């Protein structure tokens, strides 16, 4: 199993201790044990840079944005719109106007399902994979009900990779208008071959949306290099605030799409009879946005960028390799899937111990992991499982924490068997 991205030059070292100092929550104790937080894939913890940027905004420079003519409003507007530049840069988007702020990935995908979906007609299809998070499945099911389109499911291999032959076959009849696919599985850790997926989709006349909720956290994202048409991610997994997510889409698509939500700030003019829409991206941002959270997202992106994805990816590859090695040694433990390229997320099961019992017993030892279907029920069914335990690693994860996990799993197994 190789790690992503394959690093040719020596990757810069991450000073994990110095990083941990910036996360106050990592000093907390749980059930009288030091917190071992291995649930970052559900939501990451926040560094002081993010917390302080939000608090300081509210303390020193805050007002509603865009419509205000006064100093506080102008400065806050600058801060908010400045984050659009940061995000465009972060994704290597061609233009800042292609960045739309949403609440989270889920809303970003729903926005596309509504607004791009409004352009689709019966006879056209949307194609997703078997390993989607519900956020990238349910909106398309709902669109199917609304618009009478077809929903196709690309299968995965037993190893947890997209079955590329089957994928190609599903594109063959040219009816697929949109491929909506995860860029990294939140259950298996699989990093999908985005460029290849996009090329095949484009050759078949389809647009491509990548759900980057998991993947933007672990390596550098370049929407142009990936050949994406839509890309979504969510702030709270990127060490940023809750309540803020991002949709990037190609300008011409955004311009063709009707607006999603109606209200203030998304209009150009309104009469009782009729409204005309503002230019992109504002057409898609109705009402007072999550101003402070957007500014906090900017702080998160700056913070992550300063550390750099070379160092982050190398650190996480290191952790993942260590985890696979240690977990394989736990009696009765089975790692779910062995994708070709994987990020710092992995699921496992244990003979004779239900994932919920694993999670609770780990928690009693201060170790936070997830157990359940991870909002990917259809994938669970595909895998023949009802639930898995999942450990996920972040920028602040230490090898020692993985050792504590492995040791505790051994004890849990003993307890039950």
């Amino acid at each position: 199993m190789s790690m992503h991205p394959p690093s040719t030059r020596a990757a810069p070292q991450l000073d994990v201790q110095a990083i941990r100092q910036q996360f106050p929550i990592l000093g907390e104790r749980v059930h009288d044990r030091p917190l071992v937080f291995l649930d970052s894939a559900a939501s990451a913890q926040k560094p002081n840079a993010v917390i302080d940027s939000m608090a300081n905004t509210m303390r020193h420079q805050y007002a509603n944005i865009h419509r205000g003519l006064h100093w506080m409003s102008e400065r806050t507007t600058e801060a908010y719109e400045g984050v659009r530049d940061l995000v465009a840069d972060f994704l290597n988007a061609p233009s800042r106007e292609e960045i739309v702020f949403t609440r989270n990935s889920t809303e970003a995908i729903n926005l596309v399902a509504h607004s791009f979906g409004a352009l689709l007609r019966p006879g056209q299809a949307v194609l997703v994979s078997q390993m989607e998070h519900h956020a990238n499945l349910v909106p398309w099911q709902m669109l199917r009900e609304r618009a009478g389109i077809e929903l196709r499911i690309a299968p995965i291999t037993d190893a947890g990779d997209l079955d590329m032959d089957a994928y190609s076959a599903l594109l063959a009849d040219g009816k697929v208008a949109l491929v909506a696919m995860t860029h990294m599985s939140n259950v298996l850790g699989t990093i999908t071959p985005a460029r290849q997926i996009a090329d095949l989709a484009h050759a078949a006349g389809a647009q491509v949306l990548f759900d980057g909720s998991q993947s933007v956290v672990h390596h550098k994202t370049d929407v142009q290099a990936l050949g994406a048409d839509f890309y979504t991610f969510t702030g709270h997994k990127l060490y940023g605030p809750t309540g803020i997510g991002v949709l990037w889409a190609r300008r011409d698509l955004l311009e063709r799409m009707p607006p999603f939500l109606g209200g203030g700030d998304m209009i150009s003019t309104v009469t009782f009879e009729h409204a005309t829409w503002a230019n992109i991206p504002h057409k898609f941002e109705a009402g007072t946005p999550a101003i402070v959270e957007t500014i906090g997202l900017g702080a998160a992106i700056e913070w992550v960028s300063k550390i750099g994805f070379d160092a982050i990816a190398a650190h996480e590859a290191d952790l993942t390799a260590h985890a696979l090695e240690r977990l394989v040694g736990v009696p009765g433990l089975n790692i779910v899937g062995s994708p070709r390229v994987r990020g710092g997320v992995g699921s496992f099961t244990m003979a004779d111990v239900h994932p919920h019992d694993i999670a609770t017993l780990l928690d009693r030892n201060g170790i936070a992991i997830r157990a359940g279907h991870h909002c990917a029920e259809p994938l669970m069914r595909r895998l023949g499982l009802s639930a898995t335990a999942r450990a996920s690693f972040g920028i602040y994860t230490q090898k020692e924490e993985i050792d504590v996990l492995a040791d505790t799993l051994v004890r849990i197994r003993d307890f039950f068997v």
Partner: protein
Amino acid sequence: MTTITAERDALYDRLIVERARAPLYAGRLDEPDLQGDGRNPLCGDKTHLDIALNGHHIRDIRHQTRGCAICTAAADLMVEHVRGGTVAQAVEMSERFRAMLVGPSPVVEGQSAPLGALEVFAPLRSHKARIRCAELPWIALKEAFSHVDG
């Protein structure tokens, strides 16, 4: 080892682990008068109950459970406790069990009728997300009883 079996999991009493590993009342009845199902889509836990009545008495009862240790043990211990009693007694026990887990304040010992071995689940109070595991068999029981009368 000690850290697991000692105070650290009052939550997983020996009894729970034993019953999860080797339930005493697992299985089906040939001709049940009542049946009930409980399902937790969150984790895929499932329990099925077969009940044989004798008038208002629960003459026999068996469960078939696929779930975590808490769910399986809760099913087995529930069956043990309601078996032989009346439907009304089972309903009342269900209410007390629920009160123990989610009632306004922890049940004070000796204040209400004791729940016996079912009290091993009391520490779940502080693990809200796991309470539904212990409740699942009781939900199935309620469903089975919903067919009584009428």
